[in-house]
């Protein structure tokens, strides 16, 4: 680990892009802002890789706030994230040059994009929780700006606001979690906390376990908000209001993975707290099931993918909860590839159809889009977990670890995996197969949009091979590399037979579900679905009424109470004025004594004089 000023430069490059494009972007010709922004992100990526190859780096400034340093660290874990954020982010930037072509806010878009990357890099590299928090809220801001990018439409503004406010609920958890750690350990530097809590990879003795659990739980609340877990999941589908590259960025490279990253980064808090970990597993499972169920009913091409993200994030949380932190990161990585690919091929379809997003008016794209169809197919299969594709390996690893944790969890997650395969096929079938049901003239995207997808397709195909299960007699690169820096308990390896059984079961389930989905949803394209499924889809489309429940139970009451209180606050003032009028009345009584008759006053004087002298002489 070297001390080097180059480390903050990784962050400063996109930040510079944000400032320059924000101030002068309007004066640039169209592709220039996009090229500048992409180049800067590529610069960050290269710099990150170079520094990582040199064995990591750190940089810090003491006492940024009293007792709190401004410090950054690049180790294997944050290095992996830097590569995902800047690498995938770069591809999305390039894609966006084509996608945002001709938009009035072209330079503004790339300025926000660079801000997003910069904030995410701060989050990833921060070695002090407040610094992480700077990035944490920074991505919140950037997502707010980007979701509401087309702000003239009220719905977009509302969605952006919703995302920001719901995220803030999680942020409060993060803030309070820091409060607990500060009160108990007197430091918020991650490396110092790690030394204090888990030196040598074992929990230190004599710790206040209740405080530790509280801190862990509160930070987890923060992760719930940012990673859109149940019950704070409502913002993520609405975030589709932004342009498609934004969705890709939020779902693949930045933002939602931050919660998972936070758990892994602070695994020293969680690894020996079974209670908190249980909650993480539970929340992850609920989210996975909920996301998968919601994905079936969506009619918006992007919302299907959005709910799939919800479900996949649930997988990652389960992985973190069962203690397989490296697996969570593994899934973050593979997911980044295929999710970016899915979004960007959705974007290509939307682009081809002149802005149409309703899958009921798509279909038959197989015949129109010769390159995007491959992207879409690979993305859907990887998401669905077709064996040998990247999604299969990471999901299989999660299933294996959860089997070790509890067969119940394994079974539920296996069901979700099957559902994943089903709805990913639904997406693919409705968009690409069958006959075209709309009236546009679809055309393939320009190469600036297809090339990033080519790269991502390769990633979706092969990225899984860095983390193969041990029974396949081939080197697992990722596990030892990440476990060097993640505090964790060593797992007993499952017996070879059991491991193979699990792999084969999950492979069979995936293949079977993919095939069944392929058949079943061709019926939907033709409008021949069983009645029970249609009813189920109606509920699913409305996300099982989560928004309505929240509005009725939380938002509306809060608003009406606010109105009541607002008027009541004038009552506070009136109360004080009433006090004043009491004084006034008393004063009025006294004022009656002011008769205006001089002799009356003189009489008072006389009486007072007599009394005073009396007091004087008696003493």
């Amino acid at each position: 680990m070297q001390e080097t000023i180059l480390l903050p430069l990784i962050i400063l490059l996109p930040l510079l892009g944000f400032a320059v494009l924000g101030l002068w972007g309007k004066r640039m010709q169209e592709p220039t802002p996009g090229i500048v922004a992409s180049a800067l992100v590529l610069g960050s990526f290269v710099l990150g890789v170079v520094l990582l190859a040199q064995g990591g780096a750190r940089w810090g400034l003491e006492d940024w706030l009293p007792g709190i340093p401004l410090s950054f660290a690049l180790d294997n874990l944050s290095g992996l994230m830097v590569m995902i954020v800047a690498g995938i982010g770069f591809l999305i930037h390039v894609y966006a040059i084509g996608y945002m072509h001709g938009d009035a806010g072209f330079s503004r878009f790339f300025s926000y994009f660079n801000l997003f990357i910069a904030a995410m890099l701060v989050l990833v590299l921060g070695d002090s929780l407040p610094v992480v928090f700077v990035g944490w809220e920074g991505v919140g801001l950037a997502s707010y700006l980007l979701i509401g990018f087309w702000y003239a439409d009220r719905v977009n503004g509302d969605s952006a606001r919703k995302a920001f406010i719901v995220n803030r609920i999680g942020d409060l958890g993060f803030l309070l979690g820091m409060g607990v750690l500060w009160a108990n350990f007197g430091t918020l530097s991650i490396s110092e906390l790690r030394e204090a809590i888990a030196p040598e990879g074992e929990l230190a003795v004599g710790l206040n376990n209740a405080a530790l659990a509280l801190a862990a739980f509160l930070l987890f609340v923060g992760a719930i908000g940012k990673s859109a877990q149940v019950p704070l999941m409502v913002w993520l589908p609405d975030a589709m209001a932004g342009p498609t590259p934004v969705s890709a960025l939020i779902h693949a490279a930045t933002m939602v993975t931050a919660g998972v990253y936070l758990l892994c980064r602070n695994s020293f808090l969680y690894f020996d707290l079974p209670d908190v970990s249980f909650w993480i597993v539970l929340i992850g499972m609920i989210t996975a099931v909920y996301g998968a169920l919601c994905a079936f009913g969506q009619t918006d091409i992007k919302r299907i993918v959005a709910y799939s993200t919800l479900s996949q994030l649930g997988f990652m949380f389960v992985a973190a909860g069962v203690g397989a932190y490296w697996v969570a990161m593994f899934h973050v990585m593979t997911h980044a590839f295929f999710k970016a690919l899915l979004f960007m091929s959705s974007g290509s379809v939307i682009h081809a159809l002149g802005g149409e997003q309703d899958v009921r008016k798509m279909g038959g794209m197989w015949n129109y889009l010769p390159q995007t169809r491959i992207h879409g197919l690979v993305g859907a299969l990887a998401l669905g977990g077709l064996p040998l594709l990247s999604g299969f390996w990471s999901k299989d690893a999660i299933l294996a670890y959860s089997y070790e944790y509890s067969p119940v969890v394994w079974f539920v997650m296996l069901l979700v995996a099957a559902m994943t395969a089903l709805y990913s096929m639904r997406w693919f079938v409705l968009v690409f197969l069958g006959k075209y049901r709309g009236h546009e003239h679809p055309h393939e995207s320009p190469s600036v949009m297809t090339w990033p997808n080519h790269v991502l397709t390769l990633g979706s195909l092969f990225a899984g091979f860095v983390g193969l299960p041990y029974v396949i007699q081939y080197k697992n690169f990722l596990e030892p590399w990440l476990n060097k820096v993640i505090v964790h308990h060593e797992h007993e390896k499952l017996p070879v037979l059991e491991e193979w059984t699990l792999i084969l079961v999950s492979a069979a389930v995936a293949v079977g579900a993919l095939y069944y989905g392929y058949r079943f949803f061709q019926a939907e394209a033709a409008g021949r679905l069983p009645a029970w499924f249609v009813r189920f889809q109606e509920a699913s489309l409305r996300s099982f009424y989560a928004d309505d429940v929240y509005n009725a139970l939380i938002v509306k009451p809060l608003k009406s109470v606010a109105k009541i209180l607002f008027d009541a606050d004038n009552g506070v003032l009136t109360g004080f004025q009433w006090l004043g009028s009491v004084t006034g009345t008393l004063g009025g009584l006294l004022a009656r004594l002011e008769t205006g008759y001089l002799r009356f006053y003189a009489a008072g004087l006389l009486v007072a004089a007599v009394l005073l002298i009396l007091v004087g002489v008696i003493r």
Partner: protein
Amino acid sequence: MSWLVVSALLFAIGAYGVLSRRTAILVFLSIELMLNAANLALIAFAKQWGSLDAQVVTLFVIAIAAAEVAVGLGLIVAIFRRRETTGIDELRGLKG
């Protein structure tokens, strides 16, 4: 000593006058009476204590009384010109 008692009685009579008289001039006269009662007390004390300072103070009281009368009577004349009266019950500008 006995003059002190006389002075006290004079003072009280003056106070009675201030309260009972209804024209400004007579109220004023009563006040002069009270001032003289005070002077008498001073002179009596001077005699008892053998101090000339008290007599000096008496002189000052007389001088200040003269100034007071000059201004006071001026006021009465001025008020009379505006209100056509010297009755103090008719001057109620201080009413609250």
